[in-house]
């Protein structure tokens, strides 16, 4: 189980491939469920050309760790990888990566979604967007991933 913050651009697919290679669970896992969050160039009707991801060093890592442990207490997981970007990011940069390896798909699907929803509602990160016109604004709230977007 790995939880880490990254202050530089990372390739989520390479991170997963490397982690899986090193995990020592070949032949044991039948299911891998992955979520990758990526910065869009558009939000709430405006073009966005950059974003700053603030976090609370210490508490952020602790919350992420707790969320993954809580998932592990509810679902069978052979391994987990969680990477979250911090600092200044650009459109198309990966913001977050969650990967869960399980024997069976139900566990992997449920656990990865649980981790993402809890991360969105509990992990101390805050986004400040820079719009195309140069203005900056704080994103005020995350929507629920279980409800349909309008």
């Amino acid at each position, binding site marked *: 189980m790995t939880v880490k913050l990254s202050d530089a651009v990372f390739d989520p697919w390479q991170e997963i491939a490397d982690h899986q290679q090193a995990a020592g669970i070949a032949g044991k896992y039948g299911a891998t469920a992955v979520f990758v969050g990526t910065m869009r160039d558009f939000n709430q009707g405006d073009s966005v050309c950059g974003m700053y991801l*603030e976090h*609370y060093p210490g508490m952020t890592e602790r919350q992420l760790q707790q969320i993954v442990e809580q998932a592990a207490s509810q679902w069978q997981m052979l391994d987990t990888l969680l990477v979250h970007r911090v600092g200044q990011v650009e459109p198309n940069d990966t913001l*977050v990566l969650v990967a869960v390896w399980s024997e069976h798909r139900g566990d992997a699907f449920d656990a990865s979604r649980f981790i993402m929803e809890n991360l969105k509602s*509990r992990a101390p990160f805050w986004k400040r967007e820079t719009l195309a016109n140069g203005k900056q604004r*704080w994103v005020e709230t*995350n929507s629920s991933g279980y409800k349909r977007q309008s």
Partner: protein
Amino acid sequence: MSIKVLYFASLKDQVGRAGDELVVPAPLSVLELWQQANPDLPVPNALLAAINMNYASLDSLVSDGDEVAFFPPVTGG
């Protein structure tokens, strides 16, 4: 007692500083700590707080040496 206070994100912009080192009398709740640190500011809507990096309600009591953080709703992921 001595309390370290931290502010994050839009709250840091609003109070105009990243933190305070306060000496305050016990007993004191998180909400009272906010009011002592920011006597001229209303309590923000949807104010979140943590004591020593764990979420805490606004009526939790703070202890000597605590690190108390105030922040708006989180928007990661």
